[in-house]
């Protein structure tokens, strides 16, 4: 059984189509990054998966219909939707008590253990905590739940780099065990590149690109082309060319573009591109395609 399975997932708000027939399959044990520009439909897709919004099409999460069975599903699914959605009036201890009260799979000792590693005081009110501390608290609560799917929607937006790094580090070290599935959206793509096992780009309600990270690493290559080789490199029809510090950096798709790694190595230094660069290349080509 796949963790998430969607066929023809569609959602429109009035005349605006947020999801335009998405087919999606996420196996258990994967860490999927859902990347897309603002308004691409990422949050709508996640909301559908979490049973927060009504949708058309077929969708199964852990074998259940999320809209009809949200309550039951939430025993196995956790999510952090946005930073700082914890109730501002609550005390930290009250939050722990409440989640322990309603969630059958919450391990209180574990949550206390995570909180001990932070500077969060038990009797503080959430409105007194910094944004980073709220994110830490939320993560501590979520990681103490023995869930099968964790959905993160921009969980680190607006946090400083220390908190962001810590967030993904503890997620990988203290939570992910190879059985759980994680779906994450973020604009800070570089920070999750090493975390992901799968990658998906979404734009205007459609999935425009999807691959595993192994594929990503073998299929795409970025070359810092030596100036004298530039013409030769361009002849290989790169996906995209950009300039940085006076050097031309060309991005190649080794599956469709001409040339292989050996050829590329002759042109200059070859390395794995960042997700962000591929994203820009894919989106750029998309828009060109749309304009044509």
């Amino acid at each position, binding site marked *: 059984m796949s963790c998430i399975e969607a066929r023809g997932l569609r959602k429109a708000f009035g005349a605006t189509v947020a999801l335009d027939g998405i087919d999606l399959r996420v196996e258990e044990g994967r860490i999927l990054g859902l990347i897309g520009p603002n308004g691409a439909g990422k949050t709508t897709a996640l909301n559908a998966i979490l049973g927060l919004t009504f949708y058309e099409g077929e969708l199964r999460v852990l074998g259940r219909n999320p809209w009809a069975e949200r*309550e039951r599903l*939430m025993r196995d699914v956790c*999510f952090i939707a*946005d930073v700082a959605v914890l*109730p501002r009036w609550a005390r930290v201890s009250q939050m722990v008590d409440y989640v322990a009260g*309603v969630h*059958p799979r919450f391990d209180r000792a574990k949550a206390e253990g995570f909180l001990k590693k932070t500077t969060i005081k038990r009797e503080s009110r959430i409105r007194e905590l910094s944004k980073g501390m709220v994110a830490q608290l939320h993560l501590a609560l979520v990681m103490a739940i*023995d869930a099968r799917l964790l959905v993160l929607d921009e969980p680190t937006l607006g946090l400083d780099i220390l908190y962001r790094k810590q967030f993904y580090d503890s997620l990988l070290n203290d939570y992910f065990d190879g*059985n759980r599935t994680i779906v994450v959206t973020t604009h800070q793509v570089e920070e999750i590149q090493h975390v992901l096992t799968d990658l998906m780009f979404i734009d205007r309600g459609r999935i425009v690109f999807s691959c595993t990270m192994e594929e990503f690493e073998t299929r795409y290559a970025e070359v810092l082309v030596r100036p004298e080789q530039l013409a030769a490199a361009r002849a290989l029809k790169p996906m995209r060319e950009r300039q940085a510090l006076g050097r031309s950096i060309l991005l190649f798709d080794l599956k469709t573009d001409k040339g292989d790694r050996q050829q590329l190595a002759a042109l200059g230094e070859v390395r794995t591109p960042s997700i962000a660069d591929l994203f820009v290349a894919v989106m750029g080509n998309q828009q060109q395609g749309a304009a044509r």
Partner: protein
Amino acid sequence: MNTESNARGESSQASNAKSPLLAKEARSGAPASPRGVSATRPFYWSVRRELMEYRSIYLAPLAIGCVIVLGFGFVLRRLPETMRHPMMLNLPHQRDTLSQPFDVAAGLIMAAAFIVSIFYALDCLYGERRERSILFWKSLPVSDWTAVLAKASVLLLVLPAIAFAVTAVTETTIFLMSSAVLAANGLSVAKFWAQLMPVETMTGLAYHLVTVHILWYAPLYAWLMLISAWSRRMPFLWAVLPPFAVMIFEKIAFHTKYFADFLMGRFTGGSEAVAGSGMLDPEMKMTPGHFVATPGLWFGLAFAAVFLVAAARLRRYRGPS
């Protein structure tokens, strides 16, 4: 891997030892621990959550109770004088005079509870959307029905119970204070006690709370909750303006005021529950039979049910505003 499985506890250690497939099955197949099955637990914690969030539910009646006791402490000086007054020979007058502070206390505490109810009902489904914490509440295995029912039971059970308890404590305090002052002044405490009928007063209070504050006001609270679940901003205006508009329209178009009377009856209503001049009137007779036979009661309860179902549906369909 080792430290990880240690941290995950015994059950997962056992499952980690098996093949990944088996581990998966063990996790999904095992019934969520026994306490997960209980349906009352999420409800109980949902009610507790409301009390954590809206502390005025108990603080406001308590504060009013304290103010009443303090204020009464000042009046106590005059009690011996009042008891010695010739007018006190007239028994009904004596009873009225002596029971007055108790009536005032009960009335004020219930008024406080009513005002808290109105503000609570208007905010309980709106506030969580405004501060977006609804995304957190919905990430937990608590259904929208449970959440809405918990909020409704705060209005229909918790607040009346608190009003009753605070009134009982306040009145007992006043009663003991008065007795002490009378005894210290060499006046008959027995005479004072004989005039007050604590059991009857408390029964009357409970009856009033159940008939008026719970059964008769239920549609009122449910309406406010519906508006709270529906409005994207300014729920108070949305709750008040439409009925007001209907009243004005009716007045201008038909020169009648049926709707105004209907609303008035809802606010001041429940009078079918008693025969007599006032709630704590000793001559008052409870007439539950008459009350239960009032069509308005049942219409009101039917509307309350419809409003609550609609509120739960709205909570489900509506994202954070």
